[in-house]
């Protein structure tokens, strides 16, 4: 539905050129929600603006709904844009129009008859739960309500593609959940393909099927959300995941951590549980079968869109067992095991 191939964006400056996007390849299939995450300045805003050509890529191909956009003339491009909905961080509602007329706006651009507009707008306001505010002006609405109006407006022309540019970044956590829930419902009911950019992993974890991590204008990692959480490959991804799935050591332990182990040291392991493993008493079983005591230093569990994922950090005394045995046991249970380091004589140990 959205296919970006070898997209580059270079801003020419006086002294040097800024390469904002480098060889971006990103595909969003029909009905899929793909998230793009990155720090501010990583190029994600430029990326999403390239999809509807608010920014024209310096090179590369942009295909939406099967149409190559970069070669269209202005009037064809406007036609294509009617089929691409977009919502923004700051909602961008027209302040002098009521809720009703904001949602009607894209239909008025298409010169649809009044009756048809009335019907579509009423339905949409019903869908986003704002039928009772149809004559309110945007300044009379809360942030969450404004974003609902913006979503209704984006859906008015029945697009197959929805672009979300930091849609929840201006909202409080509770409202964020409501809006994400709404977007998920829309995706399910209308089969819309959705591309969202955000700097919050919590957004990705809640709605995305797949995620691309962007850094310095490059996509450094792209995989399903579960895979990214289970096995983050780059530093930047690990840090982003940390923000929702806390898996760092308490500071005083962190400072004692060594990368080379001594014979009587304890090993610190980070375990990642995915899917069914999160619900089974794996550690309990491990302790019963091996009679090895473990120290749990940190643990939590998170709901991704489709699966549960858990993180645990524990330490084990290596005098009584071999690391390989521990690893083999846990990996057989579907747990990802990672050695974080070694500490001597843990203060937490008995």
């Amino acid at each position: 539905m959205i296919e970006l191939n070898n997209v580059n964006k270079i801003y020419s400056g006086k002294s040097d050129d800024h390469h904002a996007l480098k060889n971006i390849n990103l595909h969003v299939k029909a009905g899929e929600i793909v998230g793009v995450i990155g720090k501010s300045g990583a190029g994600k805003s430029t990326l999403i603006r390239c999809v509807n050509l608010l920014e024209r890529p310096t090179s590369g191909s942009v295909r939406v709904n099967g149409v190559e956009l970069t070669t269209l003339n202005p009037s064809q491009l406007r036609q294509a844009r009617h089929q691409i909905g977009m919502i923004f961080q700051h909602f961008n509602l027209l302040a002098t129009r009521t809720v009703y007329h904001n949602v009607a706006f894209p239909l008025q651009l298409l010169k649809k008859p009044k009756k048809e507009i009335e019907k579509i707008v009423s339905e949409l306001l019903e869908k986003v739960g704002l039928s009772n505010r149809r004559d309110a002006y945007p300044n009379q609405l809360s942030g969450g309500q404004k974003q609902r109006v913006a979503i209704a407006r984006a859906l008015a022309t029945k697009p197959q593609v929805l672009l979300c540019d930091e849609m929840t970044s201006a909202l409080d956590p509770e409202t964020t959940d409501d809006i994400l829930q709404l977007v998920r419902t829309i995706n399910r009911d209308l089969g819309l393909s959705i591309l969202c950019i955000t700097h919050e992993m919590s957004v990705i974890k809640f709605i995305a099927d797949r995620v691309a991590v962007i850094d310095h204008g490059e996509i450094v990692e792209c995989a399903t959300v579960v895979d990214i959480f289970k096995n983050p490959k780059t530093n930047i991804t690990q840090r982003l995941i940390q923000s929702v799935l806390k898996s760092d050591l308490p500071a005083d332990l962190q400072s004692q951590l060594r990368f080379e182990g001594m014979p009587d040291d304890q090993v610190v392991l980070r375990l990642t549980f995915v899917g069914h493993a999160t619900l089974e008493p794996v550690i309990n079983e491990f302790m019963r079968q091996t009679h090895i005591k473990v120290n749990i230093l940190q643990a939590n569990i998170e709901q991704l869109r489709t699966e549960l994922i858990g993180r645990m950090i524990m330490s084990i005394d290596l005098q009584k067992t071999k690391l390989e045995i521990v690893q083999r046991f846990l990996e057989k249970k579907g747990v990802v095991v990672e050695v974080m380091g070694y500490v001597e004589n843990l203060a937490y140990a008995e």
Partner: protein
Amino acid sequence: MWRIWPMLSNEFGLLMHATIQTLEMVFIAALFALIFGLPLGVFLFITRNSHLFRRPLMHSVAGFVVNVLRSIPFIILLVAITPLTRLIVGTSIGTTAAMVPLAISAIPFFARLVESAIAEVPVGLVEAALAMGASTAQIVRKVLIPEARSTIVRAITLTLITLVGYSAMAGAIGGGGLGNLAIMYGYERFEVRVMLMTVLILIMMVQLFQWLGDKIAKKLAHNI
């Protein structure tokens, strides 16, 4: 010169007549400022906006002409364009003649005010409209002007008030209206009462315009 006025000899009649002349000059000049200045202001804005109709050369030329007109002192403009005035309205004295220089100075003034008014419309709104497939003309008509309408009303108010001041100046060289009355009676004949009355009427006029303008602007604004 004042003898060409109609047969209203009493003071009240004089003041009424002059007031109507002033209003006439101000409103007709303001009307022209609106008709020509609004599109000119829009043009100045869209020719420098890369999303809309970026034409740097056209922008520079239009901007230069506007700046030139705005930098000529009104009293000089009044005299300098006499041949043009005669060409357009067939005479170079009287209220009708005064309307030409008034309009010519008001158009670029108002255009700049319009330009800055629509430049204040959040850029996100233009982006959103573009993303929805709006054309430049649609963005101007349905986004920029409606969203800036409250500021544009304030610009009209400001233009009207500036024109009241200028019309008094036009009066000084035979344009009629309250300015003329003040100079003829107050300055040249030392009839302080008439002069004070004209000043009082001018103050009331300006107050009224400002009050009305603020009221309408407030009613139109929904973004506070």
